[in-house]
């Protein structure tokens, strides 16, 4: 099975509530959703973040939008206005999760959109 970064299979958005962060992954198609549902467990996400997250990680499924939602406690250094961290709201944690590599069926890897920025709309080459 090919290994592929989550970056090439899904989008993400993360946000805070107190000292809890939620990280949603949005698969680009149903086959990619099945692949991340199989591979990206709560335990793997907890291991991926290691000591950055102090509490348990819980996973929820939202198949209607091909999404997994991870909720991690004690994750923001005490919560937005209390945390010493630059990323006190966990805004970058979704992107950090996209670095995770998972094994996927060949067709899923072949169909992965592998999007990369092109700033031509921003007036630069």
């Amino acid at each position, binding site marked *: 099975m090919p290994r592929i970064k989550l970056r090439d299979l899904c*989008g*993400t*958005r993360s*946000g*805070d*509530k*107190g*000292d*809890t962060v*939620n990280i*949603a992954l*949005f698969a680009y198609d149903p086959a990619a959703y099945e692949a991340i549902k199989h591979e990206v467990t709560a335990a793997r996400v907890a291991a*991926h*973040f*290691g*000591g*950055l*997250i102090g509490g348990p990680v819980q996973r*929820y*499924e*939202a*198949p*209607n*939008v*091909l*999404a997994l*939602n991870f*909720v991690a*406690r004690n994750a923001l*250094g*005490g*919560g*937005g*206005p*209390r945390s*010493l*961290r*630059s*990323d006190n709201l966990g*805004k*970058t*944690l*979704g*992107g*950090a999760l*996209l*670095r995770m590599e998972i094994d996927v069926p060949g067709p899923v890897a072949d169909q992965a959109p592998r*999007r990369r*920025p*092109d*700033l031509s*709309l*921003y007036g630069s080459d």
Partner: protein
Amino acid sequence: MTVRLAGGQGFYGDSVTAVTGLLEAGVDYLCLEALAELTLAILQKDRLRDPGAGFTRDLPFYLQLAMPYVAAGRTKVITNAGGINPAAAGQEAAKVAARLGLSGLRIATVTGDDLIPRLRTVSALPGALANAETGEPWQDFPGPVLFANAYLGAGPIVAALADGADIVITGRVADPSLFLAPLSYEFGWAPGDWDLLAAGTVIGHLCECSGQVAGGNFSGDWWTIEQPWNLAYPIAECEADGTAVITKPPGSGGRVDFDTVRHQLLYEVHDPTGYITPDVVADFTTVRLDDLGGDRVRVSGVRGREATGTYKALACYPAGWSGEARVAFGWPDALAKARATEAILRKRTEMAGIAVDEWLAEYWGVNALLGAAAPAMPQAATDDLPEVLVRMVWRCADAQTAGRVGRELVPLALSAPPWGMTGAGRGMTGRPSQLLGLWPALVPKELVNEQVRHDITDLPEISDSTAV
């Protein structure tokens, strides 16, 4: 009948420039969400300095743009910008109307979310106000209460609209309730209509963060979003059966499609099968999103269930003071020099006998955002980094102590590891700032409802009124 709602503000400090486009596109209600979790702490400090303050200071700018449309009967405004002092915000709204020469407007202010007057009564109930994250009882609340507010629901806003209010200004209200309220009022939705209330909650949730549903903070092919400097804020075209189309004003930048909308659907959501608001428990996994093309996404199918018996409350306490310093080092051995500097500052602080309760060092370009979770870099790569910025941040009991730590850094300008340390921008150290702890809790609704009310102010008639 279609009711058009606009999400004109997503936080205190948001841009007002999208509002005119929304108003010109034609919306029945302009909903302005101004209160993030910590915003009430900022507003509480304002009110301590000035009893007439405590609402968001950008409210007058929004009202100045919207009021001519309100006076012309083209829209109504609903906002939680009243913050810690909705009554004062209502008076400010009257002043804006007077400046614009507008008359005949009816302004409602909703109060009762402030729990401080009732803390003794509420906390006497076993388990009430226990910390919902940690389980600690209220008796262990660490320090003075800077604010304690319940998140109210749509009810008092619906009541104000039924009394003919043109502008409704509240304090803490659950964000989606600002949007559900006008739908409940217009369509006659009531407690018991759980699917409809859940549908209105989803519509509100999608629109409450302004540009975030229209291509802002979007992780997909974000670089293809048109005119991101002119990003659209959303409009929801809502029907009595609970369905809606999320769209944006013509000519605006941004994008509304399946991908941008689903990104917002799960933003700051925990269990998507049970999104709890004061009004309903909505099942976000029942939401059906149909991309109609042309920046239109249809929302349907939403199911909900009976609301809980409690409001969420959020209390806040002072949690010490932080200071920080940022210095940069260049090649060679930039990371090693930065690490040495951090160690020197810590040692000097210890030698000076300054009490530091918590330290954090972030190495920008290496591990600043992720700390322990940053991917390991090979030794050869870290040895060869062209530059490293270290941000050192510390927590102390008071502002004076936090400031003393920063002063221990200054002599290092001539005594640090070689090739000198460089301030990152103007000034290596910032002024100490107060840290705040949040205490989420639940409180029985009936104890809060006793004090919830809305007050109506009718602005006097002025002849020669101007309207759009």
